[in-house]
């Protein structure tokens, strides 16, 4: 056969094969490869060449397919892993944000530490969390003051770094700026803390520490204000010859800084001078004027001035102060030898006398006007006296005890008499508590309250 004849025969066979595959929806590159196979070699091999070409294609496609299947499967698995990993990170970040928020929710350090501990447990980060706070006496456990920190806890505070103790215990320092404020001890009953957990624990501790620092700073200022205010009222030393009890209750609603005061002082001659007073209004200004009046009254009383003269002198002093506030006060002095009671009042509720037999009455008498208002020059303040019967008590108090927004003054004064009458206690302390409980109950009171009880046994 000539080359020409061979070629023609080859083309015939190829055409026939093309015809046979015509209804197969084959991709273009299949035809390209078949045509190139068919364009070469002897016509007898055309069929086999076509077959081989197709078989090659099947093999290639099969390999490609298995690569793609494998890639798809691995990508799928990778997608799940990526999603799980990022989900873990997201939960971690949102956990830290929750810790930040819990640490800011309260300025009460024990509240916020409880809230953080609760979060740590509910997120399953640790099974127990022990809190240690650094005090002037070292690391202390607020939940159990007798407990001593162990080596790991102390080491975390000293090194300012997370310290492991085995796999299931970690101690992390609570550091805010340059200061170590405490330590968290974290325990797991199942599973170990990974390096990642350690850095998460530090993240938790850092956020809690900032909240703790804020709470501490708030508490410091709050305590300072409270102490300044409380320190304005004297701590009464027990008297030699008389029973004495004093109570102060700040208003439970509104401003908690008040202008009521009580005082008791013993002159060199043994006379005891009792004072209860009430500056109008509340707040810092009232408290400061209260301090001035209380101390001036004590100064005059100590010097030897009687109740009326002391009040008159304090009135002058208040007039000289640059303040729009007024005050009421009652001063009573008792001679322990004789049981003589002298008293004077400037616009104040009268003293109450509780006698041995149980009789209770108010010592109603003429009194001077309020301290600080304009008075005619030379006006004398009235003063009164009476002999106490042995076993009597005198009660001085401010209007906060008897005045309620819901009832009038007379009703309140009658209720107070009843409170003393119904009191079965004998001890002065218990009587004061009974009266306060009966008069104020558990309800809010918007005025502050003073009560001073003095007992003369005779």
């Amino acid at each position, binding site marked *: 056969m000539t080359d020409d004849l061979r070629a023609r025969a080859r083309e015939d066979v190829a055409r026939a094969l093309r015809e046979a595959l015509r209804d197969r929806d084959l991709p273009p590159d299949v035809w390209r490869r078949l045509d190139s196979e068919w364009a070469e070699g002897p016509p007898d091999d055309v069929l086999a060449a076509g077959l081989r070409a197709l078989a090659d294609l099947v093999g290639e496609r099969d390999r490609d397919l298995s690569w793609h299947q494998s890639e*798809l*499967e691995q990508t799928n698995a990778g*997608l*799940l*892993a990526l*999603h*799980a990993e990022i*989900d873990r990170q997201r939960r971690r970040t949102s956990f830290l944000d929750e810790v930040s928020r819990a640490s800011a929710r309260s300025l009460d350090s024990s509240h916020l530490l409880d809230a953080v501990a609760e979060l740590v447990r509910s997120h399953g980060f640790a099974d127990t969390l022990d809190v240690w706070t650094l005090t002037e006496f070292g690391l202390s456990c607020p939940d159990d003051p007798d407990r001593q920190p162990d080596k790991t806890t102390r080491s975390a505070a000293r090194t300012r770094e997370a310290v492991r103790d085995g796999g299931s215990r970690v101690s992390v320092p609570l550091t805010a700026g340059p200061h170590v404020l405490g330590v968290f001890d974290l325990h797991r009953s199942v599973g170990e803390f990974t390096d990642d957990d350690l850095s998460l624990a530090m993240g938790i501790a850092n956020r809690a520490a900032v909240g703790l620092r804020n709470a501490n700073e708030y508490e410091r200022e709050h305590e300072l204000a409270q102490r300044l205010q409380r320190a304005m009222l004297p701590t009464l030393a027990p008297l030699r010859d008389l029973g004495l009890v004093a109570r102060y209750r700040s208003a439970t609603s509104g401003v908690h800084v008040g202008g009521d005061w009580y005082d008791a002082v013993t002159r060199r001659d043994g006379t005891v001078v009792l004072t209860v007073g009430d500056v109008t209004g509340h707040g810092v200004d009232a408290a400061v004027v209260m301090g001035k009046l209380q101390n001036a009254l004590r100064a005059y009383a100590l010097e030897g001035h009687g109740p009326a003269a002391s009040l008159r002198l304090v009135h002058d002093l208040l007039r000289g102060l640059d303040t729009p506030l007024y005050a009421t006060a009652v001063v009573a002095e008792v001679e322990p030898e004789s049981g003589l009671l002298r008293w004077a009042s400037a616009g104040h509720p009268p003293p109450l006398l509780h006698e041995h037999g149980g009789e209770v009455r108010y010592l109603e008498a003429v009194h001077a006007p309020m301290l600080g208002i304009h008075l005619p020059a030379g006006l004398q303040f009235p003063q009164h006296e009476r002999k106490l019967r042995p076993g009597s008590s005198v009660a001085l108090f401010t209007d906060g005890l008897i005045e309620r927004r819901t009832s009038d003054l007379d009703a309140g004064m009658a209720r107070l008499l009843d409170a003393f009458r119904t009191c079965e206690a004998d001890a002065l302390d218990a009587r004061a508590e009974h009266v306060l409980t009966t008069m104020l109950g558990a309800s809010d009171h918007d005025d502050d309250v003073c009560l001073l009880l003095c007992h003369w046994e005779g």
Partner: protein
Amino acid sequence: MTSVSTVHEVPIREEVDIVHVRQAARDVAVSVGFSLVEQTKLVTAASELARNTLKHGGGGVAEVELERGSGHTALRLVFRDEGPGIDDVDLALTDGYSSAGGLGLGLSGARRLADEFELWTEPGQGTTVTAVFRTRTASG
């Protein structure tokens, strides 16, 4: 009112059927306006659950159901097999575990991706897994 309709039923007998399940799930998701991220979560879970049906259940069937209510559209995938069932479901749902080998995030990963996930199984009776995916975007 909520209406539920089965849109596709795909037999799972060989490897290539996994791609059929993926395609069926993707088609429906696209048709009701799932975003690319939502589609991806759905298709990935469908693929893993189909593989689970094939490998662990010895084959079965996948149903793609569409749940339409006022203001929401949900796509529900149900995979049924009559294989040996799962002995310890909690273990099977733990990250990293797979009794049929592999990478072990299949069931737990699908559960994490789905908005709702339910697994019923009985030793010797087979396994049915239902996974629901909701879209936040309005349905198309």
